[in-house]
């Protein structure tokens, strides 16, 4: 018997509509702000400029955390992380297409 809806914790979708400052992102990824700047400079993260200040969307959190994991666990440099992220995205797209053709 599933618990009824009224006891459930309500969450919010954390996506393009969620706006993060560089400070937020740095705290959430547990890296310092300089490192976030490096990610932006390498093209790993997209940035939105609002009155000359950097902001990020909620989607950037997933990407930044993935970048941090790859960097740390695989001992990759920044360029390697950027390349890996691009290739992973491409791989995911191709896998989806393959799946579509198979079904």
């Amino acid at each position, binding site marked *: 018997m599933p618990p009824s809806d009224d006891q*459930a914790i309500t*969450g919010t*979708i*954390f996506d393009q509509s969620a706006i993060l400052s560089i400070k937020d992102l740095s705290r959430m990824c547990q*890296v310092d702000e300089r490192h976030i700047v490096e990610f932006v400079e390498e093209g790993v993260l997209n940035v939105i400029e609002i009155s000359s200040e950097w902001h990020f969307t909620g989607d950037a*959190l*997933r990407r930044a955390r993935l970048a941090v994991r790859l960097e740390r666990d*695989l001992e990759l440099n920044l360029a390697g992380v950027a390349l890996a992220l691009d290739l992973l995205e491409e791989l995911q797209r191709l896998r989806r297409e393959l799946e579509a053709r198979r*079904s």
Partner: protein
Amino acid sequence: MEFKDYYKVMGVARDATEAQIKQAYRKLARKYHPDVSKEKDAEARFKEVGEAYEVLKSPEKRAAYDQLGQNHRAGEEFRPPPNWDSGFEFSGAGPGNSAYSDGFDQLFGAQARSGRSRGEFHAGRGEDHHAKVLLDLEASLNGGSRTFTLRMPEIDDEGRLVSKERTLNVQVPKGILAGQQIRLAGQGARAPASGTPGDLYIEVEFQPHPLYRVDGRDLSLELPVAPWEAALGASVKTPTPSGMVDLKVPPGSHAGSKLRLKGRGIPASPPGDFYVVLQVALPAANDDQAKAAYAAFAAALAFNPRASLGA
């Protein structure tokens, strides 16, 4: 606790050089990294490899481990002698907040790799937690609550990192897409002292759906039609997320024709579309009547399906 042969895990000899260990780690880490690997037990293997590397890459820990290993075999139950690690200094955060095996915890302690040393940006605020869940597509289509069982790292009363099972009943936001995160405010780690707790982020993936294929916010369905329905046009019953609809198949359709029902995909903002991809199903020719119909068909149409091949 169980004694683990870290050399075997890494596939290196007991007298391997630091360079050899590093090389072995990089190769295995790439192979089993959960973000990259498609191997079945990738996550478990990756943790095992990370744990082994954490010990073998540090000359101090490796020496301590070797001393223990002289008297033990892998898989054997053993209890580390008191103060076995005194005189060895462990420092820094290891590869990730991944929970290592009990053996590792007992040997090297939570402080060896809990990530605390790097997580001190905001004193008074608990850490955020992150988890991934597999969700049925209906939860996103209709909203509703789902129960998830998550394994969460927690610091116990003795300051040790333990993995705790936690069951959460979550109201799934309608229209969530694969790869998106649900933020549950205040459901992360408790704060040290009296600060605010961290948040919990749940990244969503969909289980394969029996009817629909998901592509971002769009859904698609393969719909079988009879050859005459495709050729002459027809109105056919089609399942969609919002119920059965009568779909108009235009005359002259063929296998692979794509019909779009705007806004009937995942109810995100903006909502996705629903695509119907036609499949032409052939009736079996397993009785005289059907065979005669096919023969009449062939006689009536001078049809060469291989014309474009020059055959």
